[in-house]
């Protein structure tokens, strides 16, 4: 059978490119290996060309896949699975990296690009580092092969045809020659249709790729037994990685805050954790390297930390892609049956790296004498170790599913993850804040005690006053958080002082101070915005659930009827601009509207009048939405109003999504006996009795009928049982006139909007016929909403910007040197 409309040439080209990129990666690894051994310029030249071929073929694969996505070539499984004809053009790139294959391609692309920079800058280190880079490319390229190797599936090919995919075997569509004209893609996951998702994955993967270069340098140093000359060229790479990976992780937080409805920017989700942990060890490794360079110490630590950082990146990919997190994370990839291959990738570099380190352990120089207590290197070293413990604690808890798998233990993740992690991470953060604040006033080797104390005196006083003001102003009571607040404010103050001191020497000198300030601002911002966030949508109606125990009193969702105005829960007043003095909002649900695929709910926030009875002043409106996606499920998206000092965050938990139901009526016909029950959508009707009415009954007169012309009038007594309300009675009337015309007087139940016509009588069967009209919008539209105020969250975002900027400045300064 020949299929119509398929364009198979792109698939052939794609497969060719995949094989080419795999072979070229293998080739460049081998050639660089020879080049490192013989150190011949000829080997090196051909290795460069082959590496460039590898990079270009990866770039071509990406372009080809993008081309197929843009043109909706659904004959390709990847295109079908990750996009559909309605996917907007700007989200097509998100489709590219939604799947594992696409994200591997992106990773390989960044590795290749950085490899080219490395070739240009590494000089004598080029062959020994490029062997590692090329080997990593071999492993990643193998993830795309999609071939059977002695019965074992290697890789998943992004160019496989829809009808060739194993999941599609024997599907009916494959028997239709023109199936292509009849199908549409499955579409992009609605959660990923967010602008942060356009930028967060590439930045994160660039960060991952940047951990490879320091790893390659460390391995190269061990390999050629030069333990101290690789640090200087590796340093800018490490801190570029710190900046980019840090930005990537924080962007993930921003995405979660903007697009997900768990209410916050960090949930200690396994996927988030596993990308944070390599960042922590990379920061530790970078500082350890600074010690190497300035005081010729802690070489072993640097080697170990840079190896472990890269291994943790591989472990993170393993966790998110092997399906092992299944039950514990919302945003892991689906399992493609490649966990074995991923494990080999992880173990290869972990074992190779650590074996090399152990082999060289004895030869690596280590320091003999004690560092001085007031030396920068001592505190930098201790800080690096604290970062290690911190990352160990995070990765250990995150690995519970892995531990279960290996040891068969039935451990469940902590019942309250935030409390579990914070117990450990808050003390670590206190130490890091303290060290990062004082560190820059310490000199390498030794510091004059008096001078140091004089330097930090002012920051300590400022931090004391500020934290006292904040503690009282926002009523922070937990002792651990009070200590963290003080130490992070101290760090902000001390580093700001440092910035002003060095500013005379130009902006370039302010980099590390700015990065430290930013980090401390992230800590302070996260602390205040999370700890002092208030759910203002507390429910005031309903059943008292506190009777069941204190922990069940989470009435965090509020019911809003359309048009009604409710007072939100108060939160500590923050004096600022247009906000409400008393820290209270009046909130009103104004209705919903369909915009494309989104149902928008308009929620007005108002300021209460000065006195009761005054009109409320409209402040702003929020439009939380529900994205309709019949194929993958609807997704609620929050909407947030950003103020300088706090954010108001709102999302809709539950709503009727039917947007056009104005006066839609449902008519049903029923022939039943007395005592039978008619089930309606929200009530029941039971005929109780029939009465013969005198023809001059007031009911008939009121209906405007003339009693003289009537033969018979029968009134039915119907009991109407309304859900959650008292039952009532309605009385429709059936009338026969003398000339056998039939007429009836309807009756309507005001509570439910149900109206009943009594249209016939069957005396011989003892039955009556009723026509029941239900008005579907008999109930008012309502939503269930949650609203949270996050105070001072902008400190966190400003800190993120400062940290990244500061790190970039220091990298530029290093490179210029």
């Amino acid at each position, binding site marked *: 059978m020949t299929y119509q409309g398929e364009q198979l040439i792109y698939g052939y080209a794609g497969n060719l490119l995949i094989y080419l990129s795999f072979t070229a990666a293998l080739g460049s690894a081998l050639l660089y290996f020879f080049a490192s051994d013989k150190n011949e310029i000829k080997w090196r030249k051909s290795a460069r060309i082959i590496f460039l071929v590898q990079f270009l073929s990866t770039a071509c694969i990406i372009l080809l896949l993008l081309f197929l996505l843009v043109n909706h070539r659904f004959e390709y499984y990847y295109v*079908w699975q990750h996009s559909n004809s309605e996917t907007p053009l700007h989200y097509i790139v998100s489709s590219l990296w939604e799947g594992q294959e696409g994200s591997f391609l992106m990773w390989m692309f960044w590795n290749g690009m950085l490899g080219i920079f490395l070739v240009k800058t590494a000089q004598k280190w080029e062959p020994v580092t490029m062997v590692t880079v090329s080997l990593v490319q071999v492993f990643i390229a193998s993830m795309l092969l999609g071939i059977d190797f002695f019965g074992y599936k290697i890789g998943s090919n992004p160019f496989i045809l*829809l009808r060739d995919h194993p*999941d*599609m075997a024997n599907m009916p*569509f494959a028997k239709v020659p023109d*199936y292509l004209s*009849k*199908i*549409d893609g*499955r579409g992009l*996951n609605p959660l990923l249709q967010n602008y942060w998702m356009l930028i967060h994955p590439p930045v994160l993967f660039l960060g991952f790729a940047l951990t490879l270069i320091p790893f390659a340098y460390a391995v190269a140093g061990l390999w050629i037994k030069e333990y101290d000359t690789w640090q200087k060229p590796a340093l800018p790479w490490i801190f570029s990685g710190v900046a980019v990976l840090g930005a990537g992780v924080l962007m993930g937080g921003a995405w979660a805050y903007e697009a997900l409805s768990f209410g916050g920017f960090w949930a200690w989700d396994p996927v988030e954790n596993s990308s944070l942990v390599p960042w922590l060890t990379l920061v530790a490794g970078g500082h350890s390297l600074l010690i190497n360079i300035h005081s010729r110490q802690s070489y072993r630590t640097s080697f170990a930390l840079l190896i472990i950082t890269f291994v943790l990146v591989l472990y993170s990919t393993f966790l998110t892609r092997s399906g092992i997190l*299944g*039950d514990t994370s919302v945003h892991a990839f689906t399992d493609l049956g490649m966990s074995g291959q991923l494990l080999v990738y992880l173990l290869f570099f972990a074992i190779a790296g650590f074996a090399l380190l152990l082999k060289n352990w004895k030869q690596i120089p280590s320091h003999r004498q*004690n*560092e001085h207590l007031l030396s920068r290197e*001592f505190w930098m*070293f*201790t800080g690096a*170790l604290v970062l*290690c*413990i911190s990352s*160990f*604690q995070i990765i*250990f*808890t995150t690995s*519970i599913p892995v531990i279960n798998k290996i040891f068969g233990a*039935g*451990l*469940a*993740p*902590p*019942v309250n993850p935030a409390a*579990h992690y914070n*117990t*450990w991470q808050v003390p670590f953060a206190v130490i890091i804040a303290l060290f990062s604040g004082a560190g820059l006033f310490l000199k390498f080797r030794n510091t004059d005690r008096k001078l140091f104390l004089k330097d930090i005196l002012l920051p300590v006083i400022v931090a004391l006053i500020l934290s006292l003001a904040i503690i009282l102003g926002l009523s922070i009571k937990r002792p651990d958080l009070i200590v963290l607040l003080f130490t992070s404010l101290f760090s902000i103050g001390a580093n700001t002082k440092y910035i002003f001191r060095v500013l005379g020497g130009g902006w370039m000198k302010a980099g590390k101070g700015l990065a430290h300030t930013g980090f401390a601002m992230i800590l302070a911002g996260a602390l205040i915005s999370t700890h002092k966030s208030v759910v203002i949508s507390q*429910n005031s*109606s*309903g*059943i008292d*659930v506190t009777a*069941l*125990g204190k*922990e*069940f009193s*989470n*009435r*965090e*969702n509020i*019911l809003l009827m359309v048009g009604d105005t409710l007072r939100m829960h108060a939160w500590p007043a923050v004096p600022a601009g247009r906000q409400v003095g008393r820290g209270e909002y009046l909130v009103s649900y104004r209705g919903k509207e369909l915009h494309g695929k989104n149902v928008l709910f308009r929620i007005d926030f108002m300021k209460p009048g000065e006195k009761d009875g005054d009109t409320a002043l409209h402040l702003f409106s929020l439009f939380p939405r529900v994205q309709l996606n019949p*194929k*993958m*499920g*609807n*997704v609620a998206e929050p909407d947030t109003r950003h103020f300088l000092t706090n954010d108001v965050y709102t999302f809709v*938990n*539950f709503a009727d999504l039917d947007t056009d139901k104005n006066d839609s009526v449902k008519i049903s016909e029923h022939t039943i006996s007395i005592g039978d029950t008619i089930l309606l959508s929200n009530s029941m009707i039971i005929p109780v009795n029939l009465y013969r009415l005198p023809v001059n009954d007031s009911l008939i007169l009121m209906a405007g009928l003339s009693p003289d012309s009537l033969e018979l009038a029968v009134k039915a007594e119907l009991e109407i049982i309304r859900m*959650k309300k008292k039952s009532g009675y309605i009385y429709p009337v059936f009338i026969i006139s003398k000339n056998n015309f039939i007429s009836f007087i309807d009756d309507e139940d005001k509570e439910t909007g149900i109206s009943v016509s009594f249209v016939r009588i069957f005396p011989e069967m003892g039955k009556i016929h009723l026509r029941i009209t239900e008005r579907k919008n008999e109930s008012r539209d*309502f939503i*269930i909403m*949650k609203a949270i105020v996050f105070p001072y969250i902008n400190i966190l975002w400003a800190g993120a910007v400062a940290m990244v900027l500061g790190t970039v400045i220091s990298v530029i300064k290093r490179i210029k040197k």
Partner: protein
Amino acid sequence: MKRSHLIAIIIIALAVGAIIATISDSGTYADFSDAFANEGKEFHVVGRLAKDKEMIYDPLSDPNLFIFTMADDKGTEKKIFLHKAKPQEFELSEQIVVIGKGVSGEFHAREILMKCPSKYTDNQVRAE
């Protein structure tokens, strides 16, 4: 003893502490018989939604209460009182984990996790 050795010992002590704390902090997966044998203690119970049983969510009277029936892995069915709003796409869930405790024959859940494989592996080619 060198200062760095002292630090190393502290580090190792902290690491061991973190492991112990994680294990003691971690919840336990259980079925209903465990949960009701230790009423008042918090458990993670894994199971499936009993789709034939009634689900009650009446936001007009209480938006923070959702009642449904779940069958655990052994097939025991219990009524769950979830003290939260009804989760989105609840009916599509294939597997549910409820976190909460047994209270006189009823399971009161504080938190719910749902696994909806259909969301990601819905591999049906639909004709238009």
